[in-house]
């Protein structure tokens, strides 16, 4: 059996099989990315927050654009070389193509990495600060956590005296984490009281774990096993009892419907209870002596005296101050606050003057005042350049972003105005890729700042969680990146393992490279859309 038109095209369609297939596949891909681009349009049109415009560094994206376009050209040369049966040239051009893919991914990696380490924080009044978290040094030594790592994470601290686990839902890694933290703080987590349970029908309760037994996964598992066995046993008993009740009720009311008698049908607990085993759905442990435990904000629902973890573990203890400590603040953004103020009909300037940040941070106040001066200069410049209409109003005026956002470049400019450090051109170029250079520009340019937890509205790194713009940015570019990797792997396979096929059936290899090349062009084409939409608009 041989499938026709694998290498040679069919006469009436003029196509070989895989060429049809790749075009169909690309049509499907167009719909996939079309779905994402539509989502982008939909989200941006419906955004109820200031959509971050022109927020990404353009230079790496621009370089990537040319890298991809270049590789699309070389992949065609590689295919043409195969058609001309020139293996050496094929190797060179395909090599360049694959190398371009590598450059693209490295630049992408740098871009992602910078974002994933950059903290954003939206205060309750919707002012936003951006920067890097970290704790101040003590005696020139950074503060370390119990694992010996520099504390960069933003954590919530609870002075814990008691832990109550849900015996079914407790999350093992978290229990282990609690144990390590207790050990580090020289504290012990022990069972508060004897856990006793009826484990066999009709027998008296027996102690399955003694008070004072230290917390361990093994102990929790043991209690869980007892609990599940009892639950399943009780389920059988109770179901049988309820079935009997229904049988009796139906016999007593033959002409009534189920819903008419349902209220009166209940299990007779007096009969059933002696047959039941003990279910132990929670188990309490004492932390002795009570100790500070810290938790990731997403894992805990904090409250003044009793917090709860997402796996249903209840933490008794006082919630401690858990401020978010910024080592460097590199942007202050009042766009969201201004937007909210305008919605309420309040003058944004007044709202900003009254914001928590301006009132509590001298640096923010000073930066805002400096920024007002810059805005005034900009307005004057715009008036000079573009003139005014007949009412005397300027034709052009600053954008929302120019009015209300003080970015890291503004901070740098301010520092230069004030006669502080100016960077060498090479370092300034590096900043285009890696963001602000804190060390060279100094702590006065990007000072530290601490925000108490109760002022935190929403915080996140610059990840998909920060807002739908970053969500769609990471999703589209991530998926595009996967396409680049996939395409490059296929092309690299032809490059490194294609020799044998070249010798036996060069036309087939050329077909395959053509297919791979078509895919590569598609990947390039997607980027041509991605770049302006996500980087320039």
């Amino acid at each position, binding site marked *: *059996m*041989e*499938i*026709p*038109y694998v290498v040679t095209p*069919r006469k009436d*369609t003029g*196509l070989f*099989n*895989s060429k*049809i*297939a790749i075009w*169909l*596949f690309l*049509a*499907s*891909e167009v*719909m*996939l990315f*079309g*779905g*994402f681009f*539509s*989502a982008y349009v*939909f*989200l941006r049109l*419906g*955004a*109820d*927050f200031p959509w971050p415009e022109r927020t990404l560094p353009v230079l790496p994206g621009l370089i990537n654009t040319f890298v991809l376009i270049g590789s699309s050209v070389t992949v065609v040369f590689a295919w043409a070389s195969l058609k001309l049966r020139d293996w050496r040239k094929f190797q060179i051009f395909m090599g360049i193509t694959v190398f371009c893919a590598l450059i693209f991914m490295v630049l992408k990696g740098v871009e992602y990495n910078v974002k994933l380490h950059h903290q954003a924080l939206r205060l309750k009044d919707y002012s936003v600060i951006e920067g890097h978290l970290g704790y101040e040094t003590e005696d020139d030594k950074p503060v370390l956590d119990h694992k010996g790592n520099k504390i960069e994470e933003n954590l919530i601290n609870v002075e814990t005296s008691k832990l109550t686990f849900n015996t079914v*839902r407790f*999350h093992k890694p978290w229990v282990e984490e609690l144990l390590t933290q207790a050990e580090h703080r020289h504290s012990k987590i022990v069972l508060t009281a004897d856990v006793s349970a009826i484990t066999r029908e009709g027998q008296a309760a027996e102690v399955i774990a003694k008070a004072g037994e230290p917390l361990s996964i093994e102990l929790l598992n043991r209690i869980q096993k007892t609990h599940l066995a009892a*639950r*399943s046993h009780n*389920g*059988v008993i*109770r*179901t049988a009892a*309820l*079935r009997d009740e*229904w049988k009796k009720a139906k016999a007593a009311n033959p002409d009534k419907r*189920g*819903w008419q008698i*349902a209220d009166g049908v209940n*299990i007779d607990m007096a009969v059933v209870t002696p047959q039941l085993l003990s279910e132990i759905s929670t188990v309490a442990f004492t932390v002795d002596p009570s100790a500070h435990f810290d938790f990731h904000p*997403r*894992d805990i*629902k904090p409250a003044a005296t009793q917090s709860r973890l997402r*796996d*249903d573990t209840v933490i008794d203890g006082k919630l401690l101050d858990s401020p978010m400590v910024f080592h460097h603040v590199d942007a202050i953004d009042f766009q969201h606050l201004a937007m909210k103020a305008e919605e309420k009909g309040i003058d944004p300037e007044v709202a900003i003057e009254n914001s928590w940040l301006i009132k509590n941070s001298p640096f923010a106040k000073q930066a805002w005042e400096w920024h007002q001066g810059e805005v005034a200069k900009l307005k004057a410049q715009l008036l000079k350049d573009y003139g005014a209409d007949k009412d005397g109003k300027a034709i052009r005026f600053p954008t929302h972003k120019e009015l209300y956002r003080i970015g890291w470049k503004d901070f740098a400019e301010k520092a230069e105005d004030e006669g502080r450090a100016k960077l060498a051109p090479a370092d300034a170029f590096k900043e285009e890729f890696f963001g602000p250079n804190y060390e060279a520009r100094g702590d006065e340019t990007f000072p530290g700042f601490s925000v108490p937890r109760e002022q935190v509205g*929403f915080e*996140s790194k610059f990840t*998909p*969680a*920060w*807002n*739908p713009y*970053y*969500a769609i940015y990471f*999703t589209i570019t991530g998926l595009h990146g996967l396409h680049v990797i996939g395409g490059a792997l296929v092309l690299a396979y032809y490059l490194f393992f294609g020799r044998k096929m070249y010798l036996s059936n060069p036309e087939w290899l050329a077909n395959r490279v053509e297919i791979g090349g078509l895919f590569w062009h598609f990947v390039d084409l997607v980027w041509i859309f991605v770049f302006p939409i996500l980087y320039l608009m």
Partner: protein
Amino acid sequence: MSSHATSPAGHDAHHEDHHHDPGFLRKWVFSTDHKMIGIQYGITAMCFLAFGFYLMMVMRWSIAFPHQPLPEWMSWVFTDGWKARWLQDGKVTGETYNMFGAMHGTIMVFLGIVPLGFGAFGNYVTPLQIGAVDMAFPRLNMASYWVYFLGGIIMCSSFFLESGSAKSGWTNYSPLAGFADGQIVNQWLAGQTQWLLGLVLLITSSLLGSVNFITTIINLRVRGMTWMRMPFFVWSMLVTGFLLLLAFPPLEAAGIMQLMDRVAHSSFFMPSGLFTKTEGLANLSGGGSPLLFQHLFWFLGHPEVYVLLLPAFACVSEIIPANTRKPLWGYKSMVYSVLVLGFLSFVVWAHHMYMTGMGAAVSTFFQTTTVLISVPSVVIITAMLISLWGGSIRFTPPMMWACAFIPMFGIGGLTGLPLAFNLADLHLHDTYYVIGHFHYVVAPGILFGFFAGVLHWYPKITGRYMSKTLNHLHFWPSLICMNLIFFPMLVQGMAGFHRRWYNGGDAYLSKAQDSVNIFGNTVVQHIDMNIIMSMGAWTMAFFQIFFIINLFTSWKFGKKVENDNPWDATTLEWATPTPPGHGNFLVEPVTYRGPYEYSRPDCDSDFLPQWIEPKHLEAPDKH
């Protein structure tokens, strides 16, 4: 009756043109033969259908007999531990009902009907009908099946997770779906996440399948098989392939975005200021759009309806001419209709979203396109109906199902019209009327078409007929029960029964007995229908056993076919040996004419297969 079969009956399956024995695994499990893959798809899909049916039986208990423990004959399937977690004293809880409801829909649509129609029938029959040796990409075909299988396993195994399976309806709307299972620490082990992962795999499977089908149909047609000589079956598969190819990716995009919402805490579909009773103010950025998910979902969701339907059309349109002994009436208009249907199915999606407040202009647009799409559907179904006219109908087992398909699908289609209208939909939306409508299309409609297909091609696959007696035992009760289940739904729906009442309106009833609720007394008047419908469902389940018995016993004990073309049909699949070996045809066939040349006046026998050379004609060619 003369036979034009190319090989004697009972010809050995292992004919000469393939010498190597591929070994057990290659032959039965990791086969690249489109026929074996078709059979694998068929059996797997039927297993999933049975499972989905079972979930529905449990749900119907909760609707008909709320507050009563599940009876032993239904609950023995679960372990005691599972029952203790998910049933309260043996009663179906609201959460469990939601779980079953979401999975019933998902399983039936994505794991049952689509693989059965497109995967099984499409795979087995399409290459045979165009005279191809196999699909264009046999290994891709195998991958398509295994990816589907894996996706199904991932989805169904989520029943055993701590979170249970997905529970936000088969449409999985955010933010409801976004919050469900939020308590699970490792989100990759939450039922909702597994649903999304399974879905992404299923979409991948359809993508591989549809690329393969379309390429095969375009490039592997045998000599003489021009476009207008292709059986309607192949046309349907071509359009289905395009629907899968182009409609599924936006859902994949939505699935990926919802996955991001779950594991990366993004807010694609989560609006600002979400507040829940359990979580308080959600720890999310907000700013996303729940409506976006609905748009992306229904952009797939509506073409998906035709992905389900077209294979059933395909089966029935092959069976009708073979059993009426006359050509399919209006073959060309059917072909054009199916193409128009395919195109229009992409521009009707938002009629599922009239209640979202999209605005009158948008609603009007989608109302218009929705009414338009009924035109090609009606053309097809009318052509099928007229095809019966004046035929000498043979009521063979497949023909019985095909005949039942037409009115059943007719009810399903016509009850859809009120839903197409914005104004009527406001009343009927999310009631049992909607459930009744689309189940009439899918269950007695599409499934009957598939039963017909199984009975029709079974002799080709196995060399034996399925039992007529067992078929009667299967057919008549199924026909009656289907209507017992779904017709009352239409009535209940118009009375205002909401589709997601897990206790069948009982909670409303307890309030309405003394006081007047918004439905007046209508709930009281219609609640007893729940019991009739549930009884109908369980009875129908019982009679499906006869089909299963028939399917497996006939393989060994059925009546043997007399020749390779037992129905005296005209399309190319009947030119193969029975069952066809690897590579399908002994001699590469040539197509000389259209697919439905029955009862030609210039021909002695009442059928003239596509592959018979014109010189065999006794009468001179008039043209």
